[in-house]
Structures are given as C-alpha cells and as structure tokens.
C-alpha cells in the first residue's frame, strides 16, 4: 500500500489502455474531477458505475465548550465527503486480490499477503483466547465461530493456510471445550450450539408424528361432531315439519355415547354444542342475562371490553349486537354510553363450532358495515 499511483501515471495508463493520446486522457480526467465536484455541489451525490458513489453528507452545527475559558462555542456545520464502494467492487476487495489478478496481468505477492494476514489473524485469535481463557463460557462460542470464519477465508485463497491455521487453532480449543461440555448447568451458552444439532432431527420426527396424530384425531372428532350436529338439526327440522319422527332422535343419542371412548376431554366440548345451539339460536334473548353495565369512557373499546369480560377480543361483535339500540357506529361510540355486557352462553363462546363462528362472523361484518356508514 505504500506506493501511490500518481495523476500522471494514471493518465498515462488510461491513455495506453484506451488507445488515445495522453492529452485526451488528461482532458477527460480533468473533466471527470471537475464534474464530480460540480455534481457533488448540485446533487449531493455522484454515482460512478463500476466504482461507487461519492456523497456529500451534512454535519449539523453543534455546541461545544471552549476548554480553557469554559465559554460556549458553536462548531459550525459543514459537509463531509463520503464514498461508498459499489457492492461488486466491495466484494472484490474483500475477497482479496486473488480473483482479479488471476484474470489480469499483475501479480504482486498476492498469495503471500493473505496468508500472512491469516497468520496474523490466527495469532490475534490465540491472544484473544488467552484473554478469555479463564472463563470457559467464552472460549466455547469462540471456538464455534472460528472454524466458520476461517473456512470462508480459506476457500477463495489457497490450500496452504489450513496448515497455518489448524495447528494454532485446534489443539487448544479441543482440549478446553471437553471439560466445559460436562458441567453443563454452569455454561449456558455452550450447550446451545453443540447439542442442538444432534437432537434436532429426532425431535422433528417425533413432533411430526405427534402432530399428525393430533390432526387426525381432531379431524375425526370434527367430522363426527359435524355429522351428529347436522343429523340432529335435520331431525329437528323434520320434526318441525312433521312431528311423528321422534324415533330418529332416539337413534341419535345412543350413537353419541360411544364416542367418549376416543377422547373424552374434547368430546365434552364438541358434543354438547349441536343440540342446545338449535334452541337458543333466536338471538336477542341470550343477552338478557347481564354481567354488568359499563359506561363508555374515552379509552374504552368494545374489543377491550370483550377481552376483559370474555377473555378474548374476538367476541366483541356480541357486545355490538347486544347494544344495537345505543350503538350506531361501533367505532365511534359516545363517551358515557352505557354498554350492556351480557353473559355469553357456552355455545356463543365456542368458536370451534361452525355455526357459532358463522354467526359471530356475520355479526362482525354487520358491525363493520355500521362502522363504515357514519
């Protein structure tokens, strides 16, 4: 890095490469600098494809104190010139000289330098390790990082490095981490990187199988539930048309009972829905039983009330439904409006039930339409 390519040398090189006279090259380069300055002045940024972007960044004026007198002074703002290399160029530079030079003529110790640097790096890392050596917690992550990093560097450059790095790098960490791995409870960050890799696969499989089973069971239950629900509804409907079809209901109930064998907990919630829901379906009545009446104040929202009283904000359309007489626009309720908080029946709460869900959804859509009106 010691030597510089002077302006004249650059001009000469450009002229030779482009096959133009030195004069034109000079004129071009002068125009380049002057226009670059001009561009910075007018646009605050100049982009040169294949190189990068020059930018003008303002530094705001700031206050400071004169150290000797204690007087307050204002450091005036000024413009700073920043240069951001293009991504391609940046990568090229980071990768080191190797690629560019294999393609082009100049070879100047490019293969010696990176090795030296890697060696230096290794030394630095060893120093760091020595610094951190007392506490085993920290050596472990370092050990993890290093192979990754060094690999990145090793690949593009050359093979000889692993020899340079490995003897320095490996003997130490390998000796250290083993005692660390055993007293696991002490070293918290350590167990993560290592053991995670191994148990992950079995865990995944296990989860997969379990999830699948759960899915299948739930699906079956839903199917059963839906089937019985539909059936009971059909029977009800038929009953309402013609009463003498009672026997069908008798058939339904005995069939329901064997189900609990599969999974009693879920069935408790699923099975009771179908029958009772048909009865309370006439809506306004379920709201007769109130928990409380709450006055609307500035920060309250129906959703939050729903969350507070029912445990989930998704039930807020019920609140709207129960208070239609006082609420015209659910998103703009007047402060002081008394909001009736009705008790919700089990069926109203149960959103796994398709009908309840649909009902709730319909209410929500209605409420949202009311929002849009005014």
């Amino acid at each position, binding site marked *: 890095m010691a030597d510089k*390519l002077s*302006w004249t040398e650059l001009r000469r090189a450009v002229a030779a*490469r*482009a096959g133009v006279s030195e004069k034109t090259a000079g004129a071009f380069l002068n125009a380049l600098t002057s226009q670059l300055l001009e*561009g910075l002045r007018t646009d605050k940024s100049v982009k040169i*494809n294949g190189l990068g972007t020059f930018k003008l960044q303002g530094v705001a004026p700031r206050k400071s104190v004169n150290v000797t007198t204690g007087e307050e002074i204002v450091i005036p703002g000024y413009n700073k010139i920043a240069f951001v290399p293009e991504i391609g160029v940046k990568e*090229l530079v980071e990768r080191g000289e190797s690629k560019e030079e294999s393609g082009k003529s100049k070879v100047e110790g490019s293969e010696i*330098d990176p090795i030296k640097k890697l060696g230096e*790096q290794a030394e630095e890392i060893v120093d760091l390790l020595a610094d951190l050596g007392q506490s085993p917690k920290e050596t472990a992550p370092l050990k993890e990082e290093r192979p990754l990093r060094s690999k990145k*560097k090793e690949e593009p450059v050359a093979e000889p490095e692993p020899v340079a790095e490995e003897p320095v790098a490996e003997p130490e960490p390998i000796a250290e981490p083993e005692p660390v791995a055993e007293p696991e409870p002490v070293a918290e960050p350590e167990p993560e990187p290592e053991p995670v890799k191994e148990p992950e696969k079995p865990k995944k499989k296990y989860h997969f199988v379990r999830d699948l089973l759960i899915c299948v069971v739930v699906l079956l239950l839903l199917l059963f539930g839906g089937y019985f629900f539909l059936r009971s509804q059909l029977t009800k409907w038929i009953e309402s048309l013609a009463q003498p079809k009672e026997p069908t209901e008798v058939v339904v109930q005995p069939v329901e009972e064997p189900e609990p064998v599969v999974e009693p907990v879920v069935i408790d919630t699923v099975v009771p829905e179908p029958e009772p829901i048909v009865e309370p379906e006439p809506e306004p009545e379920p709201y007769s039983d109130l928990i409380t009446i709450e006055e609307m104040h500035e920060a309250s929202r129906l959703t939050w009330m729903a969350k507070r009283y029912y445990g989930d904000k998704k039930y807020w359309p019920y609140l709207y439904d129960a208070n239609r007489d006082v609420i015209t626009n659910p998103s703009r309720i007047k402060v002081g409006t008394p909001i009736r908080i009705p008790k919700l029946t089990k069926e109203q709460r149960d959103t796994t039930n398709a009908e309840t869900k649909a009902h709730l959804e319909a209410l929500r859509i209605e409420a949202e339409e009311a929002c849009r009106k005014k």
Partner: protein
Amino acid sequence: MLTKELIGQIAQAAGLSKKDAEQLLATTNAVMRENLMAGKAIQLQGLGTLEIKERSARTIVHPRTGERSVIPSKQQLVFRPGSGMKGELKNA
C-alpha cells in the same frame, strides 16, 4: 447524479463524444481497480486518494446472547478526500 449524467457532463466539458467519455470512464475504472488490487493507492488530483485499507479484526458481543465472536480483518476500499476537495465542498 447518475453515471449517465456524469458522462454527459464530462463529454461536454472535455469536448468528447458521449461514447468516448463512457469508454474512457470504463478504462479509468479498470485501471484504477487493477492498481488498487495490486496494492497501490490512487491519487485523484483535486479530489483525494482511493486506497485499499485493512480493517482490523475485532471482537463483538452479541447483544442478546452475550456470545463473543471475532470478526476477522478485511480489506476495504476507502476514499480519503484531499484538503482541496474538503475545503471546496465544506460550505456547498
């Protein structure tokens, strides 16, 4: 200002055709890159210096896990504006 605009301006200022200016800019870039890669700094008269510098390795601590890791040193292309350029644009 984009490269195209810059080329247009240069062509006008140096009395070249846009095509020539574009080509010259490309060769200039190529020449600069090669020299940079060869470890040379490039002095741009009236502007400053372009050079490749080594950014030394440093340790970082992951803010959440507290894990320490080393960021290896790397090469960086930097531009050091000269005093002329600095002065000229200071109050632009």
